[in-house]
């Protein structure tokens, strides 16, 4: 390999901190060099663009919903269209955006680099997983444009068997099936990479916590997603062949469908949140310039969440008809699962304590995450308690709960991660002031959108309704105003990022002072990540990382 033939200069040598002439972005040129690339970094970037586009699409639908709900009746969508719009919003956000967002985009880009390897274990599988994602996207767009899916993202039977939108259900379930495989392949690849490709010195407990989180996520992806696969396959057989397994008319059992569905979809919420927690662990320690507090506890709690997460799916079905004992057991298990989440929150706070906090864009997003995720997690508890859930189930309280964890948690952490690693990925610094402004707008807009929904829910406003009682109108309007502010904040964030590509400063190797391996290679990284095997140290030892004014970033003084 040509790189090795050259005199080997340690990548840690300072001074050579200028923008590299050759890096993975200009390594080869042309559309095909991207479309057929096996480089995990390019695949990660393609995913990043893809999931952001899906997010924009899903966000469009969200705003349509909110604007429709401005008046308590006679909104601008008719009832049928309203059903389609909230279905597509949910399905796109869950399956196309949030599940692949962090693992497939940021994980793909950074997992091998943070681990110190050249690539993931199966680069071809990685590329095929991206194309499966694209196929899923196309199928979803078909379901959207040809007929219009109206089942809700959960595809509950028997409605999904009976609805007139048969073609849409088929296209969407097939889309979910394909997306499931995309997700399985990513997870499988990551597990194998972490297990077999760690370079010498990279022991399990020297792995950055983002990798622990991704590892736990991958376990869930591999263990839960196949069940979703067979569920949607049976659902399409239901439509095509009338097999009746989930159809009460044929002696089938719709509650079985719900069990199968939530057996995947509850663990799936941890597919969404665990990588976000991983990002926050990185952000907290790097931007507080202080070793992470409770490394092992955070690492173990990721695995604990992954395992416990498989035992609580029944809390989505407390009102669907289950044996009393079962509901009590599911409720009790639901409470245990919140313990590892709380452990993480306390450890992050412990990391900040007496740290040197740099208030910059990634850190603001990280702080927003902690605040919002805590609210989201705490409101999960009344939902997990049987007596209160009887009232809250299928109300806006649930809607607010999961938006706090999914949007306030995962999306905000995703944005924090994108800002944090943007200089590394693109080699450009963004405007930090404007970035912070975007974080503040997002935070305000978000709370304005979803706090009123908790109140709405406790007062009995059911979810998925196109019209509502007049008494709820003020709170709904507050929420709609909030959503517009939120949308504006997100656009600001996008503009800040794009603007950096046009006239951003060239990024130093280590702009924030991180100690993990990705900060040891150039920004953007070379094609093979490391020109020589990197020296692996403690990922959270900041004692040797010092600011160097000459390069405008941090360097390692050994």
């Amino acid at each position, binding site marked *: 390999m040509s790189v090795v033939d050259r005199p080997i200069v340690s990548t840690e040598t300072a001074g050579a901190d200028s923008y590299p002439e050759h890096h993975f972005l200009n390594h080869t040129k042309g559309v095909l060099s991207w479309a057929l690339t096996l480089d995990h970094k390019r695949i990660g970037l393609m995913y990043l663009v893809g999931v952001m586009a899906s997010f924009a699409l899903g966000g469009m639908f969200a705003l349509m919903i909110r604007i429709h709900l401005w008046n308590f009746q006679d909104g601008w969508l008719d009832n049928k269209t309203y059903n389609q719009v909230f279905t597509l919003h949910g399905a796109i956000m869950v399956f196309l955006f949030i599940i692949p967002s962090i693992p497939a985009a940021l994980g793909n880009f950074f997992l091998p680099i943070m681990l110190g390897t050249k690539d993931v274990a199966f680069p071809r599988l990685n590329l095929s997983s991206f194309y499966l994602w694209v196929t899923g996207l196309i199928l979803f767009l078909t379901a959207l444009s040809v007929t219009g899916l109206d089942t809700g993202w959960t595809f509950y039977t028997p409605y999904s068997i009976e609805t007139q939108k048969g073609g849409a259900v088929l296209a969407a379930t097939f889309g979910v099936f394909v997306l499931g495989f995309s997700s399985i392949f990513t997870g499988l690849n990551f597990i194998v990479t972490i297990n077999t490709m760690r370079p010498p010195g990279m022991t399990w407990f020297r792995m950055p916590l983002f990798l622990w989180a991704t590892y736990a996520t991958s376990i869930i992806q591999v263990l839960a997603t196949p069940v979703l696969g067979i569920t949607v396959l049976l659902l399409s057989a239901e439509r095509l062949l009338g097999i009746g397994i989930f159809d009460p008319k044929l002696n089938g059992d719709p509650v*079985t469908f719900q069990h199968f569905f939530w057996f995947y979809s509850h663990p799936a919420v941890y597919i969404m949140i665990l990588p976000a927690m991983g990002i926050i662990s990185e952000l907290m320690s790097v931007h507080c310039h202080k070793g992470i507090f409770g490394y092992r506890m955070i690492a173990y709690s990721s695995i604990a969440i992954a395992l416990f997460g498989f035992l609580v799916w029944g809390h989505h079905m407390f009102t669907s008809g289950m044996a009393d004992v079962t509901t009590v057991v599911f409720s009790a298990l639901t409470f245990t699962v919140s313990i590892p989440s709380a452990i993480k929150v306390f450890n992050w706070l412990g990391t900040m304590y007496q740290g040197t906090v740099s208030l910059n864009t990634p850190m603001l997003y990280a702080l927003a995450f902690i605040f919002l995720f805590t609210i989201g997690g705490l409101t999960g508890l009344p939902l997990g308690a049987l007596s209160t859930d009887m009232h809250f189930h299928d109300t806006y309280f649930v809607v607010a709960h999961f938006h706090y964890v999914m949007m306030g948690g995962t999306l905000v952490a995703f944005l924090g991660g994108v800002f944090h690693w943007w200089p590394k990925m693109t080699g450009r610094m963004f405007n930090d002031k404007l970035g912070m402004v975007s974080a503040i707008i997002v935070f305000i807009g978000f709370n304005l959108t979803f706090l009123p929904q908790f109140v709405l829910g406790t007062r009995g406003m059911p979810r998925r309704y196109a019209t509502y009682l007049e008494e709820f109108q003020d709170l709904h309007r507050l929420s709609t105003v909030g959503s517009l502010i939120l949308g504006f904040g997100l656009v600001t964030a996008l503009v800040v990022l794009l603007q950096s590509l046009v006239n951003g400063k060239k990024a130093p190797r280590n702009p924030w002072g991180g100690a993990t391996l990705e900060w040891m290679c150039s920004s953007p990284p070379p094609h093979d990540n490391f020109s020589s095997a990197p020296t692996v140290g403690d990922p959270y030892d900041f004692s040797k990382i010092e600011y160097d004014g000459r390069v405008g970033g941090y360097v390692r003084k050994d």
Partner: protein
Amino acid sequence: MTAIQDTAPHTDHAHDDHHHDHPSWLAHHFDDAEQQYDSGKLGMWLFLVTEVLFFSGMFCAYALYRNRNPEVFEFCSAFLNEKLGAINTGVLLFSSLTMAWAVRASQLRQHTLLVGMLAATLACAAMFLGVKAVEYSHKWELGLLPGKFYVAQLGGHHGDPKGYLETLCVVPMILTVLSALYYVYSWVVNSTFHKQVAGPLLVTGLCFFVGVFLGQTLEAEAADSHGGEHAEHHMVQGHVDHASHDHAAAEHTEHPADGAAAMPVVVASAGEDVKVMKEQLATPDADVNQKSMAGLFFSIYYCMTGVHAIHILGGMAVITWLIVKAARHEFHEQYFGPVDNVGLYWHLVDFIWIYLFPLLYLIT
């Protein structure tokens, strides 16, 4: 930094990126053969885990409905021909043996033996599908269809031939003819490589039809001997159908021929069970011979065996790929991961069938 990175722009093709000590079979991002092998193996095991979970959804559905309506499973299982199931079980077990042998051959550089063993595995797979094609087409003719398409079995007909089997045979026929042409071509150009690929393919194609022939012979025997078994069936039907019955001819055409010695006992006891159930429930709803009962069994039957058959097809595709590689003598003691991993996959497919066979065919 520039000093390190200013390499002549190398291409994205993994092969151009090799270290000097990187042989062509070692992907550039792996350090050594062991790491590559371990990665592949772990990847395959994880994939098998997902496969098991994938099937587990259907096994759950099976357990739920069998638990709820045991009499339906007994009634319907009588329509499945244990003999064909048993033959297929044997065929798959044998193919697992040849597959395992193939792994050994690949490690020992026994290239011709390797091709032979892979060919035997592939041929067994084809034979399995041949038998399955007979089973499926026969059921379709009888109206033993999933869910809402199920036709209540009133007896009195063998099921008119409707050309389903012929339809199922079209694609295998085309493939066999193509393999035959390829085989001729391989002799014309007299290339060992092409012969080693074409031969197995041709044998595989033919074995599909061996399976079809075997299946049909046994089905026919089962149908012929039905007179003798009719008494027992009458019991089942008598308690099960509430519609009128013409039992003059056998309705369970798939019943094994010479099962006459062992099976009547089984069927009779099944009949008694049903009788008890009937007396207890004594409502028309409890009748098992209808879409929402037997139909649901056949839904589960087709889903499970169908998804399994798709896995067989997938396995055949990768084994064919292995044959091509083996004919190129690519495998050796340092590089046999693909054979090993496909072998693991193949054993799993076999393993699942070993569960499906008793669960579906051998219900008493």
